[in-house]
């Protein structure tokens, strides 16, 4: 798709922001299944998430930070997922980065906020494991580059 960058040289960086151990386990498996397991950075609270994001932004890496996939839970300790999303979106590298919001919330209020902050996709955490594995299908379309 992108003629200047036809082959990815390094694995895509994934910033996984999630505090629930079970969900971390399942989402990591899903990322592995999608071939995204090469460089997963995990933040289990909001503060750590922003620190990690600043780190990724500062790296002169290839692919660039703007291609970093962010998997974001909303209900987090210290800083909420909404604030993190707003922060990432207001940074130069994060303005268009793929952000998949993964939440157990179904409230209209949360949904509206996610939309307003321009999340790339939204996935409601299910109770059924098979339904959870479908998260891969939500992630794939928002990925940048040739795999799109």
């Amino acid at each position, binding site marked *: 798709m992108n003629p200047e960058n036809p082959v990815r040289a390094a694995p895509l960086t994934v910033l996984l922001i999630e505090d629930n151990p079970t969900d971390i386990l399942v989402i990591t498996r899903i990322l592995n299944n999608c071939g995204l397991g090469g460089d997963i950075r995990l933040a289990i609270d909001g503060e750590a998430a922003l620190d990690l994001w600043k780190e990724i932004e500062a790296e002169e890496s290839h692919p660039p930070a703007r291609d970093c996939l962010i998997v974001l839970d909303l209900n987090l300790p210290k800083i909420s997922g909404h604030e993190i999303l707003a922060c990432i979106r207001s940074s130069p590298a994060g303005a268009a980065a793929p952000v998949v919001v993964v939440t*157990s919330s179904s409230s209209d209020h949360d949904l509206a906020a996610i939309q307003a902050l321009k999340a790339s996709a939204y996935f409601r955490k*299910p109770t059924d494991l098979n339904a959870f594995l479908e998260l891969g299908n939500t992630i794939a379309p928002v990925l940048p580059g040739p795999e799109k």
Partner: protein
Amino acid sequence: MVLEQSAPKPDLGGHEVEAEQTAQLWNDLQDLDLTRLVQSVTDTSTRLVGAQFGSFFYNVLNERGESYMLYTLSGAPAEAFAGYPMPRNTELFASTFRGEEVVRSGDISKDPRYGTNAPYHGMPAGHLAVRSYLAAPVISRSGEVLGGLFFGHAEPERFTASQESLVRSLASQAAIAIDNARLFEQSRWIQEELKRSNEDLRRANRDMETFAYSASHDLQEPLRNVAINAQLLERAIGHTLEDEPLRFLQSILQGANRMEALVKDLLTYTHAIKHAGSPPIISARQVLDDVLQTLAGRIEETSTIVTAGHLPEVSIHKVHLAQLFQNLIGNAIKYHRSGQAPRIIISALRRDVWWVFNVADNGIGIDLAYAEQIFDLFKRLHSHSHSEFAGNGVGLAICRRIVEQYNGRIWLEKSTPGDGSTFCFALPDQKP
């Protein structure tokens, strides 16, 4: 006339003055403010009677319902009485406060009841000089002595028999006025109390909603953990497990699923009334048709026959009426008798200011002993293992919550176990 403020104007005769003052008094008696009322009664009656001093001692109740005495004065500055105790139950005053006859004396200092009490034995030193004395009890319609009107004059023989009867009638008028003022204050107090309880109720409702909402949200997280981990376990070692441990694992999953359904219903229940804005006027028939469309699959599967009579226009949010129809018709289909196709008849009748909707079926019926409790949240008459009648006991609770939001009512009109039920819900008719 002794008092300056009551000096007759030169162009008016005495009778006209009296008429004017009586008119004034009549006006004063309409006052519903107790303090103002009592003061004006004292002032005007002092003038009408031609007394130098007048006073009105009356009992009032504080918020705790305790009685205490207040007084108003006329013709004498309050300082003239300041420093003296309240009129005690001396022989002279006692008869008035007991509600006995009017006391009229040409010279109270010669009255045998006068001066019998310690410590003053008569008028306390420095008290206003009183010879002529006129006192009348003010008695409520309930028989309670509200207080007493007392008049005095420094000169003897100032009060006549006609002034005595005037005071008697003034006292009874004042009693009525005070009764009214008290009733008015009472009703105002009750209204305030009602407003407070309404606010309490609203607050409790809000708290309940907040609680149910956050509980259902906060419950979801651990619940998902149980379910997902049980499924991960099943994937990892399910194939190696014997029958019994596999059943344990499946029970965990079933429990989690059931809890998930409950949490979802709890959310639906708390959301049932969240609908902003005043309700539009909609066609109930249109809503019913939409609901029947939604339920078409189940209706066909069960060969249900639905008949609807004329349905009115009502003022209600569409989603709410739809939920009412859907839950009641859904129940009628669910609780049908085996081997018999459900028949449901929907109609509406105007009763006073209400539109009463009927949803009648030929299903398994309900024991009337449970007619009330079926509308309670999570109340079910069938065990969960009875898969034929699956559910969480939320449908009718949601219905009740909806109708009550419109000041309506829902009830089980009639039911015979084995021979069908009729549910009714009443919505106020908004049209004049």
